[in-house]
């Protein structure tokens, strides 16, 4: 099953290819590799070769701190949708380490979790689940655009008097 890449606005082609630890690194191209391998090889990359780390649940995003300025993409893996560690990973990348590139969720990414993922800083979703792909294609957005805590998504604004409430800048209370 291949994943399809969703960003705000729709499905797009994915220029990145996943490589595991064993696969040999080509001289050119854009590749997602496990975090440890990324940390080993990121230092001296030949021209024309781009790498992005795959951060699994339990991996510490702090190890990426020194690399983030030069990075385009971090992929955060959800082996099971019910394992919520990836939410903290994404949030730390944005909040603590100020990462401005793409934070992509991969693995068990499902429709009902996407609104939460967006709020902790994910802006791309590699989706395998068929019903989720169908729903996204149909424009079925399950978000409730009223939030009771500040988070990481750009463009949220305070909602009403409470210092902790937020809403998307473009959403009206209708």
């Amino acid at each position, binding site marked *: 099953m291949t994943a399809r890449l969703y960003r705000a606005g729709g499905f797009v082609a994915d220029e990145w290819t996943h490589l595991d630890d064993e696969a040999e690194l080509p001289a050119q191209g854009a590749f997602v590799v496990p975090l440890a391998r990324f940390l080993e090889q990121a230092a001296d990359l030949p021209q024309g070769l781009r790498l992005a780390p795959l951060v699994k649940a339990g991996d510490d995003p702090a190890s990426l701190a020194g690399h983030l300025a030069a990075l385009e993409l971090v992929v955060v893996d959800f082996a099971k949708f019910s394992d919520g560690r990836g939410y903290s990973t994404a949030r730390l990348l944005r909040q603590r380490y100020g990462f401005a590139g793409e934070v992509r969720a991969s693995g068990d990414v499902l429709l009902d979790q996407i609104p939460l993922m967006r709020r902790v800083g994910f802006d791309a979703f590699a989706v395998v689940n068929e*019903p989720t792909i169908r729903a996204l294609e149909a424009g079925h957005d399950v978000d409730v655009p009223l939030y009771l805590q500040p988070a990481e998504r750009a463009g949220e604004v305070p909602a009403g008097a*409470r210092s902790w409430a937020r809403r998307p800048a473009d959403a009206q209370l209708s």
Partner: protein
Amino acid sequence: MYRYDEFDAHFVSARVDQFRDQVQRRLAGDLTEDQFKPLRLMNGVYLQLHAYMLRIAIPYGTLNARQMRRLAHVARTYDRGYGHFTTRQNIQFNWPRLKDIPDILSQLAEVEMHAIQTSGNCIRNVTADHFSGAAADEILDPRPYAEILRQWSSLHPEFSYLPRKFKIAVTGAPHDRAAVQVHDIGLQAVRDADGNVGFRVFVGGGLGRTPMVGRLVREFLPEADLLAYSEAILRVYNRYGRRDNKYKARIKILVHETGLEELKADIEAEFAEIRDGVLTLPASEIERITAYFAPPAFDVAVGDEAVLEAAIAADPQLEAFAARNVHPHRAPGYASLTISLKPIGKAPGDATAEQMEVVADLAERYGHDEIRVSHEQNLVLPHVRRRDIPAIHAALAEAGLAEANAGLVTDIIACPGLDYCALATARSIPVAQRISERFASPERQREIGDLKIKISGCINACGHHHVGHIGILGVEKKGEEYYQITLGGSADENTSVGEIIGRGFSYDEVVDAIEKVVDTYVGLRETPQEDFLAAYRRVGDQPFKEALYGTA
């Protein structure tokens, strides 16, 4: 009490629509049961032995007459005419149909109620002292803080898929009626020497198969830091809590395995990163939320005490009721009243639709429109005038709600057990009923005095048996129900976990065993004022062992 503004009203009704959509996608097969499960749990829907169960939040146990009437309506229309109040200040309906649940939720939304985060691996309904805002010994009303925590934790994007459930309790009094030390986070509001409000913070309390008493991590957390510090705790837990074994996934195990000092350092390090940021609570916001909980205008009249005394002198039933179910109030001439949901021989915590309506009427007529649910599975009218107690008592008696047993041996906490629960290994409600019948005599109950019996139908400990003065745990042995007895547990400011006294007893034997324990206590106490815990802590388990198992 807190009232929804436009934002809250939209928030809750949009969440109902969202769940309606999820139910439809489940019925259409787009969601597997596995994928649907956390979504329905997020909305309080369990799959039980016989049916779905719906658990509705009563945030920090506070509700008004209109809300109570709506619960009665749900009980009558969608259930079998009754509801079950739980130890977490929620109400459960045991017989709704899945297809009706979105409708039930939208009817609840009309009266500012919801079922959000009453189950699942998220931050659960925040609980508080049931005498909040009324108790004579209270330092401050903890409910504004519980409300702020409720809001912040609702659909928290980072903390909706935690390793396990997460429970927060708050008290504002030195005498802890909210069992804060058996919660994942327990907060005790205090004031420092300059009168500033802060919290003593306990982390890692919990019951279940590994009962643990919460550990103090902060002696004084300034109120402005409440959310930032909570976020720090939750982030540490979300990242490092165990996920390989659901029985080891609560934060108490993380505290235990990491060590208190190291975990405390982790929390403080996380807190240092986010403090003084967007989560800092502005004093103006705390004030604004606090204003919702302003005490009602108490009208103090002279002579109230004489009215009550005269009525008591003429009515022994009222005297018994006043002696047990009436609690000191901060305002002169006022009291808080416990409405016992433990009539002799009945299922603890159950109330019929009619009874809910009677309580709603009384709250409106005599109680400034406030009702509480206590973690002991009773209802409370927090603010009544003492002179009105005779009239309230008479109305309660007519509705079968005047049992004068608050805090007595028949005021038993029991989980649903094998009668409803899919996880149960033994019955618990019938055991409670039989014990209640055994000690039915009011004279005998009053002679025994304060005593907390708590019963769970399996090791998950929903009935809090670990912290009962006498705890009863139902287990299964070779296809038969057995009951283990623990002694010496307590969930107040001196929290302790009870100790197993010896081999368990069969369903038939257990009531006799409990009676022996109680009689042994009555026989050895130094004065009638020495309660069970004090006596047990003084003499140890030996006399009880002898009474139960002989001297061998």
